[in-house]
C-alpha cells in the first residue's frame, strides 16, 4: 500500500536571480525522502500561496537573497492564511540580517537558516517542525 509522503514547496520570492542555494536544499530534501516541488525563480506571493494550495504541501521553504523579505514574507503568510493554509509551517533561508530574525519569528516564520547552514541541519529542523504539527 502507498505510504503517506511529506510534500514540501521550495520557492524563491522576489527578484534576485540566484537559485543555487534553493536547488541544493531541494536536492537534499529529495535525498532524504521528501517530495519536493520546486517552482522556480521570481515568484510572487500570490503564485507561492496558490502553488502551496494546489500541491497540498506540508511545509513551505522560501529562499531569498534580495533583501525584500520584510515586505514579501508577511504577504505570503497572509495569503496562506486566507486560503485556509495557515497551519502550514513556513521556513526561510538565504540572506537575512540577524536584526530581522525576531520580527520574522514573531510574524510566524517557523525557522530561519542563514548562509553556511548545512543541509543536514535543515533536514533535522524540518523533521522536528513536522513532528510538532
Amino acid at each position, binding site marked *: *500500500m*502507498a505510504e503517506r509522503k511529506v*510534500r514540501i514547496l521550495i520557492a524563491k520570492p522576489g527578484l534576485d536571480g540566484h537559485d543555487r542555494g534553493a536547488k541544493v536544499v531541494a*536536492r537534499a530534501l529529495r535525498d532524504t525522502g521528501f517530495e519536493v516541488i520546486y517552482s*522556480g525563480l521570481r515568484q*510572487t506571493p500570490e503564485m507561492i500561496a496558490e*502553488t502551496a*494550495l494546489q500541491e497540498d504541501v506540508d511545509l513551505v521553504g522560501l529562499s531569498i537573497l534580495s533583501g525584500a523579505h520584510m515586505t514579501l514574507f508577511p504577504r505570503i503568510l497572509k495569503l496562506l492564511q486566507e486560503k485556509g493554509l495557515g497551519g502550514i509551517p513556513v521556513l526561510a533561508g538565504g540572506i537575512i540580517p540577524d536584526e530581522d530574525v525576531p520580527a520574522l519569528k514573531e510574524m510566524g516564520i517557523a525557522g530561519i537558516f542563514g548562509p553556511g547552514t548545512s543541509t543536514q541541519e535543515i533536514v533535522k529542523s524540518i523533521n522536528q517542525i513536522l513532528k510538532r504539527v
Partner: protein
Amino acid sequence: MEIVERLLAGDRRAAARLISLLENDASQAPRLVAALYPHTGRAHIVGVTGSAGTGKSTLVGELTKKIRARGEKVGIVAVDPTSPFSGGALLGDRIRMQELSTDEGVFIRSMATRGSLGGLARATGDGVKVLDALGQDLIFIETVGAGQSEVEIARAAHTVVVVVAPGLGDEIQAIKAGLFEIADLFVVNKADREGAEGAVATLNYLLDMNQTEGDRWRPPILKTVAIRGEGMEAVVDALKEHLWYLKESGKLELKNRERGEEEVKRIISEAFLGRLLSRLKEGEWERMMLRLAAREVDPYTAAEKLLESSRELGQEG
C-alpha cells in the same frame, strides 16, 4: 461525503486534498472514487509524452494559455520520477508554467511515480478524475520522459501528443520505443533548430510506412517553438479535431470502455492478491519467497502452491 461536495462546488483546496488522499491511502480510494465517478467523464484527456529535453512542460504551459484564451478550464497532472534510492522526488515541472499558477481556471498538480514503473503514478488516473469533477474542460497528463509509458498513457488519455526535438536522436527512438503506434499527434518542438525539417520528413516517411488501409486519422506533424509560444494555435486546433474525430468515429466510446475495463481488471487483480495473501498461514509467503530466492522452487511452482494453499485454507474457513 463532505470533501467531494466541496470539490463539486469548485473548492480548489478540496481538490488538492482529495488528490493527496487518493495518492496516500489506497484504502480510502473505493469510497472516494465512488462519490466522484458520477461527476466525471466530461473532460478531454490529453497525454503528452516524449524524451527528456524535448520541452514537454513548456509546451503544456503554452498550450494551456491558448486554451484559456478560448475560455476553457485546464487541469495539468505532471508526473516525475520518484528516486528509487531515497523514495523522494524533485518535481520541477511548474518552473515552466509559472504564470499559470495564479489563473483560477488552471489547476496544476505535480505527482511523483512512487514506485510505479510505467511512467505514470498509480494515482494519476484518480487525480485526473478529481480535476474532471472540478470542472476542468481539458486535462493534460505529462509523463515522465518516454520509454515505458507508452501503453499506460495510451490507455489513460483520449489523445496522445508525442513531442520530439531536433538533434536529440528522437526520430529513431520514436520507432524503437513504440511511441509511433500511440501518437495521435506529433509535435516537433524547438523547430527553430537545425534538423527540424529532417525530423518532420522522417516522421512523415514513417507514417507512410505504418499507415494501414482504412486508417482515417493520420497524425498531423506540427512544428512549434514552445518557449516563444509559436505554433500553439495549430496544436490546439489539432487536439480539438482529434477529439471530434474520436466522437464521430465512435472511437471515444470504445476508448472509454477499454479504459474502464483495464481499471476494473487492475482493481480485481489487486483485490484478489490481497485476499490470497490474507488467507495464507503466517509466514507462508515469506518462506516461499526464501525458497524461491534459494532456487529450491521456480516462480510458477511457487505461485501454484500459494494459490493451492489459499484455496484449502479458504475452504476450511
